[in-house]
């Protein structure tokens, strides 16, 4: 089962493939270090540029960016109390007070070593868990695959939290976008309005760039945020000198890694949830909980290890079932699709070198974090915070246009991307979740194809969808995913009603 993993290693160590990981990690740290930019946005902008690249080069860039950005977010979180990425939300709790004590450099080094530890653990989890799971999913027929798609959509809507009506609207919108173009079986024209450009459907890349890149750019231009910092006052020491001071964090690293991996596997949960859970657990078990929130570097370790531990593990359901665990994983699925790699059971059988190579790239990306984000680079990345946001915004706009235009060499795609961007901005501001849109687009076509295939096999009999045990299990899981959070919400509101003195949200205990 794991022999394919070893066979894929030599390819990953090839010059271009390895260089892609290095470039990706550096680019990811740069992106993560800039408040307002995220890994999701960076990968969305990158995806169109990877069209002409070899799959492993493209995936290496994505894996590097993902790992790098998860750590990069710690830079502004620690130095300015502004999380560079949503996943770094718990890092300022102790990162900023540590920096205020003149130990900003040490806080960032704790962040980079913890991030690397979490990333390595996550990559191993991906390597160990994905292959056996893919073997199981190979047994799935069209009706099971249809239910897996429904399960994926349901889980990302209902486990994401927030308003389920808004989540469902997002998913319906995504699935509706997936049907635009010619019907795959009959060739019936669906909503093309005579435009040949969308006869083959709407490219996921156009949707990704519009939804995930345009709203952050508008945010960059909307808020004139001052982010100046003096990198010379960080008190950075060489990383090999500071490593011995971190040896006491090993329990936090292991605990945070396990939390991050578990959260990553759960569809809908993300790095910020992992980071807060890990921080809470580490503080709860600490011998000196009173020092937490006042500049305890172990708090930075707890947060950063968990938000990096959910990176590769989020790809376990994504690669094996086609269900991404996080928004970034959903965008990465889009990146796989444009290289003709359909996530799901057949991916492991048809493209083992690429899929296992991708796993190695996650591992190397995590290891490279220490070297690329360590002592030498810490001050340089801190200086990135001084880049003017309006200039950054205007450059990203140019990159978005180039990326989308170069897919087919036509301006129509650019206008379409701007349309999706406007929709994405409104959705973002009104708290409609964006991952269900992407997943709807990916799984919509997949679900329709398999539903129609199943119905053909069953000669139009709809009961074929419920005629085997695996389908029924997946249906039961889907019902559990839909009903579970509703019951939990009702239970919590009843409990709150019976204890009126308790503030909603006081249970997290992280708002010091």
């Amino acid at each position, binding site marked *: 089962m794991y022999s394919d993993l070893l066979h894929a290693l030599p390819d990953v160590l090839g010059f271009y493939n390895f260089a892609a990981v290095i470039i990706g990690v550096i680019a990811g740290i740069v992106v993560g270090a800039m408040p307002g930019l995220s890994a999701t946005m960076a990968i969305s902008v990158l995806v169109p540029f990877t069209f002409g690249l070899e799959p492993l080069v493209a995936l290496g860039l994505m894996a590097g960016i993902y790992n790098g950005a998860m750590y990069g977010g710690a830079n502004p979180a620690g130095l300015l109390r502004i999380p560079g990425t949503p996943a770094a939300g718990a890092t300022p709790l102790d990162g900023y007070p540590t920096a205020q004590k003149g130990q900003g450099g040490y806080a960032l080094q704790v962040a980079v070593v913890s991030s690397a530890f979490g990333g390595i653990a996550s990559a191993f989890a991906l390597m160990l868990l994905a292959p056996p799971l893919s073997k199981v999913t190979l047994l799935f027929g069209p009706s099971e695959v249809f239910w897996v798609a429904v399960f994926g959509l349901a889980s990302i809507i209902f486990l994401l939290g927030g308003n389920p009506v808004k989540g469902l609207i997002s998913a*319906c919108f995504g699935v509706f976008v997936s049907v635009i173009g010619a019907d795959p079986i009959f060739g019936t024209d669906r909503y093309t309005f005579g435009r040949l450009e969308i006869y083959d459907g709407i490219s996921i890349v156009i949707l990704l760039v519009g939804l995930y890149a345009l709203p952050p750019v*508008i945010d960059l*231009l*909307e808020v004139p945020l001052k982010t100046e910092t003096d990198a010379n006052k960080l008190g950075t020491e060489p990383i090999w000198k500071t490593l011995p001071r971190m040896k006491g964090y090993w329990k936090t690293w292991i605990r945070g890694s396990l939390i991050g991996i578990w959260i990553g596997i759960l569809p809908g949960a993300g790095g910020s949830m992992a980071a807060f859970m890990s921080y809470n657990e580490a503080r709860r078990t600490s011998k000196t909980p009173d020092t937490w929130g006042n500049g305890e570097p172990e708090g930075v370790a707890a947060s950063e290890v968990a938000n990096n531990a959910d990176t590769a593990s989020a790809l376990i359901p994504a690669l094996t079932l086609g269900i991404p665990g996080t928004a970034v994983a959903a965008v990465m699925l889009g990146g796989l699709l444009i290289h003709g790699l359909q996530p799901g059971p057949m991916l492991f059988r048809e493209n083992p070198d690429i899929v296992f190579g991708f796993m190695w790239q996650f591992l190397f990306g995590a290891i490279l974090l220490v070297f690329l984000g360590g002592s030498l680079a810490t001050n340089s990345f801190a200086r990135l915070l001084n880049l003017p946001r309006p200039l950054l915004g205007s450059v990203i706009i140019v990159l978005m246009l*180039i990326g989308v235009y170069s897919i087919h060499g036509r301006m129509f795609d*650019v206008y379409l991307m*701007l349309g999706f961007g406007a929709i994405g901005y*409104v959705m973002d501001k009104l708290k409609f979740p964006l991952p269900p849109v992407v997943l709807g687009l990916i799984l919509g076509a997949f679900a329709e194809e398999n539903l129609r295939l199943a119905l053909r096999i069953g000669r139009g009999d709809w009961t074929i969808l419920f005629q085997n045990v695996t389908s029924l299990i997946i249906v039961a899981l889907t019902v559990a995913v839909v009903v579970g959070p509703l019951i939990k919400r009702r239970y919590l509101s009843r409990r709150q009603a019976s204890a009126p003195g308790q503030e909603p949200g006081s249970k997290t205990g992280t708002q010091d």
Partner: protein
Amino acid sequence: MSAPHTNRLFRPETLTALGIIAVSAAFVIPTFGMRAMSALLPAAMLAGLIILAVLLLLSDQRKAAAGEEPKPMTSAPKRVAGAFVLIVAYALATDFLGFYPSTAISVPLVAWIFGYRNPLGLAVATLVVVGAIWLIFGLGMSQEFPAGRFWKD
């Protein structure tokens, strides 16, 4: 701070829900001319969107009836509208005037309008961005960008 809207129909979520209902209802019409299996998924999704938008509308109106103020979508509406207008103008300029001239104007213009007003920094940034794009995409990857519809004729 702008005064809160008195009309309950002007709440952002209500307007969004009404928009979804109107657009979805319009898109339902073409499904009547499709084969049943081709129409199945789009019709199901559009029906779902209409039902969900009605639920969203009811929930928002219930909040309005309870006196709950809607959260503003943006803290700086003029800056957001300006950003959108400039981005669309840049795309149109690329289409009609060509990529390189539009980019050379847009990069410093957007940065200037939104608060970065260092002339030397703007000049260097424009030169670096346009030059890097030409080197990497134009020269290195032979990527062709729109030359501009005006100049074609």
